[in-house]
């Protein structure tokens, strides 16, 4: 156990994403106030907290879906006040969603292929004629996508319409679509919500495999404490939009403020 965790610890590199003093409000409701944390290359970083703590808002800020009123984000040596979703995607940050956000009318294959769209270059006329370069491009990306399909073990469903798949598989397709972008950082918003034990174990295995094999940095939000404590290197704890804890799983577990937030305090 110790040998394994030290081997994993050796993989962790420099800080690649740093969030500093981010505040986000919707009208009078403060979703985040002055949250700072950093993410190191190749690590598995968890964000936890009770419902409404601002975890998903935090991911949406990193993604550029929400624009914070205050604070900065350092990423790849540049400082941003807010991010633009297109640029974020181009710069190698991918994302899965809490409530499934798959393209329901499309097949599994097309959903994952759409994750490659940023890398596809042929213009609309070539696509209309499906001539040389457009066809070659389509096939090249199909090969990459098939690799991901094999990796996540969803070969049997590639031509199925996504809306018809069971929930656990849809979650896997969501992950596949994000992986198709070949991201440096993968943001996972509750990848195990609503799953049974077996599906959770599968998903944990996939997340760790992604981290090990592709070296992808992973930021995940999760409610299942056993999962978080098992797979993450460092944990941020949010409560009512404020950071109340940050550190290794053991440190966080020992942190009195965190215990209070989760269990409640007797007065």
């Amino acid at each position, binding site marked *: 156990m110790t040998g394994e965790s030290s081997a994993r610890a050796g993989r962790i590199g420099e800080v690649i994403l740093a969030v500093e003093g981010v505040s986000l409000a919707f009208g009078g409701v403060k979703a985040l106030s002055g949250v700072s944390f950093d993410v190191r290359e190749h690590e598995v970083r968890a964000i936890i907290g009770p419902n409404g703590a601002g975890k998903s808002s935090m991911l949406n800020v990193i993604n550029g879906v929400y624009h914070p009123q205050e604070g900065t984000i350092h990423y790849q040596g540049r400082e941003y006040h807010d991010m633009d979703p297109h640029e974020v*995607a181009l710069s190698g940050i991918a*994302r899965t969603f809490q409530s499934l956000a798959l393209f329901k009318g*499309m097949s599994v294959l097309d959903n994952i292929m*759409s*994750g490659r769209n940023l890398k596809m270059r042929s213009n*609309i006329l070539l*696509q209309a004629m499906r001539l040389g370069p457009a066809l070659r491009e389509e*096939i090249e990306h199909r090969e990459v996508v098939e690799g991901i399909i094999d990796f996540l073990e969803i070969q049997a469903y590639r031509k199925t319409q996504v809306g018809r798949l069971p929930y656990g598989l849809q979650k896997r397709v969501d992950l596949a*679509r994000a992986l198709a*972008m070949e991201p440096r950082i993968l943001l996972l918003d509750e990848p195990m919500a609503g799953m049974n034990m077996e599906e959770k174990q599968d998903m944990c295995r996939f997340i760790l495999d992604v981290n090990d094999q592709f070296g992808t940095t992973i930021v995940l939000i999760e409610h299942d404490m056993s999962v978080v404590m098992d797979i993450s290197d460092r944990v941020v704890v949010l409560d009512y939009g404020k950071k109340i804890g940050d550190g290794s799983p053991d440190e966080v577990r020992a942190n009195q403020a965190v215990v209070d937030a989760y269990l409640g305090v007797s007065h």
Partner: protein
Amino acid sequence: MFYRENGQFKSSYASDQQMLPILQDRLFMAGLLVIAFAAVPFFATDYLFLSLLIPFLILALAAIGLNLVVGYCGQISLGHAAFMAVGAYAAYNLVLRLPQLNFLVVLVLAGLIAAAVGLVFGIPSLRIKGLYLGVATLAAQFFMDWLFARVKWFTNYAHSGSVQTAPVEVFGWIVDTPVEKYLFLLVVLIVFTLIAKNLVRSHIGREWMAIRDMDVAAEVIGIRPVYAKLTAFAVSSFYVGVAGALWGFVHLGSWEPLAFSLTLSLNLLFMIIIGGMGSLLGSYFGAAFILMLPILLNQVPAMLGVPISTAMASHLEFMIFGALIVFFLIVEPHGLARLWAIGKEKLRLWPFPH
């Protein structure tokens, strides 16, 4: 028993990605093409050509165009007849003012002009969705109705406001008789269908569908909504513009602005709703359904020998037409194309139940 893909193995991605991966489908399509090109011209009457087949081919093209933006990209438009009008009047003016141009070039240019206009009227889609966008696209309809009725330059200062065209000529072939018109339109429709099919299965098509199904997720994987929505509007208007030019030149021959009124826009929308949103095949089914139903309804009382007045017949026609549309939507909200797909699924298993 006969329709199944057993034993047809794909050994390359190219063969897996072809348009009709199943052999039986390819044979069926080949048979259909032989019938359309070789049999129909010999057996169909002029009445059938003029009242059914020719309008069907053009409206199917327009329905495909509308389906690209509404069915594939999820942006509703109630003003697509306006872009047909733009295509028709653009073609009219191009032929009038640059008579040396080949008609195929005129068609493409008319389509491009319609695409440019469609792009402008697609801009509201960047901010509003759903019914609100539908209302905004009505502006296109009313503006174009007004423009072509009031600005006389477009109709070459014709007193009545209606314009006449000479028969279409392509590389010395004068497309004049119903059979020739039919064959010309059939070729155009097939070419445009192939192009549409290629678009919707390439990455531009996936961008459109991604925006339709879940726009936030589409943005997060790097799809720019501005680009996806505006290309959808432009390509769609291009198709509809070409259809408009054909409607004017090949089907009508002479027309006035009313030919492209709101009624036509709504009819196009009915076609894709009944035929199937997001399905090219559905566009064909929808166009055929909307065109054939009134004709059939008209014939039925006469065939049954029931003597009713023409006024009564036309009232009944409207009522039954409306009722049938409602019926089909309740039975199969995803349109005739879905019924077709279900039929194919059943055929794969037949004669076994599972």
